[in-house]
């Protein structure tokens, strides 16, 4: 590139033409890259946040068992403790987003990816997870004998 002309020196025709060419090519590239950049960014999906979901009938859940189910776009885990209580959590491990599962032999929630362990309150017992699992509320509703287990965001 030519150096800047000293003040007072006449601007050469070549310099002006080079500048126009450069500006033209630069604006062309910019007009390519802007739409491409906007295109590459994934659009926000118009999927409503789920607030509650029916996990199943009460009779389907045995004591000391767990089930993973769909809660909106993410998995949730419903656990029935050995003494018959219900717990529900966001099933996405707080470490690296794996889906956790219930371990009936130790009555803990376990992430198979990096051996993260949570207790039945969602708190980290051992392993790499940095935070407890997000807890959901569990309600049992319906006629006796027909009760449904419903989990919802607290």
């Amino acid at each position, binding site marked *: 590139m030519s150096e800047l002309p000293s003040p007072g020196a006449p601007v050469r025709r070549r310099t002006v033409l080079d500048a126009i060419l450069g500006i033209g090519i630069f604006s*062309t590239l910019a007009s390519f890259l802007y*739409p491409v950049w906007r*295109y*590459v960014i994934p659009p926000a999906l118009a999927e409503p946040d789920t607030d509650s979901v029916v996990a199943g009938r009460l009779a389907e859940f045995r004591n000391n068992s767990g089930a993973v189910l769909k809660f909106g776009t993410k998995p949730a885990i419903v656990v029935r403790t050995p003494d018959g209580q219900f717990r529900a959590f966001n099933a996405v491990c707080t470490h690296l987003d794996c889906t956790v599962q219930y371990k009936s032999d130790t009555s803990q929630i376990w992430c198979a990816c990096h051996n993260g362990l949570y207790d039945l309150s969602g708190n980290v017992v051992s392993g790499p997870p940095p935070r407890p699992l997000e807890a959901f509320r569990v309600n049992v509703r319906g006629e006796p004998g027909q009760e449904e287990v419903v989990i919802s965001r607290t």
Partner: protein
Amino acid sequence: MAGRAIVAWLDERVDLSGLRHFVAEKTVPVHAHKVWYYMGGLALFLFLVQVATGILLLLYYRPSASEAYESVKFIVSTVEFGWLIRNVHSWSANLLVLIAFIHLFSTFFLRAYRRPRELTWLSGVALLFLMLAFGFSGYLLPWNELAFFATKVGTGVAGAVPVVGDFLVRFMRGGDEVTGATLTRFYGLHVAVLPAITTVVLALHLLLIQRQGMSVPIGVEKRAREGVPIAQMPFFPNYVLRDLMWWFIALAIIAALSVFSPWELGQKADAFAPVPAGIRPEWYFLAMFQLLKMLPSHILGLEGEMLGVLGFSLIAVAVLLVPFLDTRAARGEPNRPLTVIGIVGLILFIAFTIYGYVAA
């Protein structure tokens, strides 16, 4: 400047002097017909536009019968500038085929294929066939009604090929009918197989052109032998800037077409819906489509369709073999009968294309 330092750094490691000499010394002949030289560069540019927009479409496109139509709809209606990317891809594809045809005909009439450039012609014709295959396979991907039935008809034509016809149809469709299996097959062809082959053939084509330089018409060559030197223009920057100007014109046309005449998505393909009226293929297959429609079902006891397909295949082979059939051009003599054949062929192609439009 940083650029110069980087070049010096590279130069020290991989000797760039050959490349530098090549760029500095390459010239392009200047004569009355030089405008046709730009068609090749233009076709190359449009191909690169196809590669770029094609890769972008891959980010959101889903190749299955249940999702293809919806994903294209998503691209054009929800993704920002998705309508632009899809329309540029479709319009640029059409323009690419058009320019490739113009490139072929100008090369033909200027006899640029003559000795020693037979291989450039062969690879160029192969590239044109590849572009047509791109067009045919890409047409189905939005999985709309028109594409679905056009593909049914297009693949069905292969059934007229003697002996292996039925096999060919099954092979192309991935089954007896056009289904989701056809879609995944065409998709694989469109985004993997054809690009891979094209890359190799295109590289060969460009290498040959750089090695041999531009061909000049026979008349200009004759005058040069008689002592009139052919004027030359430096390739860089003079010719490159002119190339660039053509690319800008093409871009402006594509952008204008995309904005003012966007492609419709139409209805989703439904195998059990009746064929919509006015079904026809892309314009570059229209002449063939129209000819096949007009052939009687039986000619001299043979199937009309089979004769048509046979005829098209013969034309394709003849086009490929032009440099070897035209012995006069190889000797540097004009070949008037061949020019007449070319003109008649061109007029017939245009006439049947227009007829196909009017008849539909």
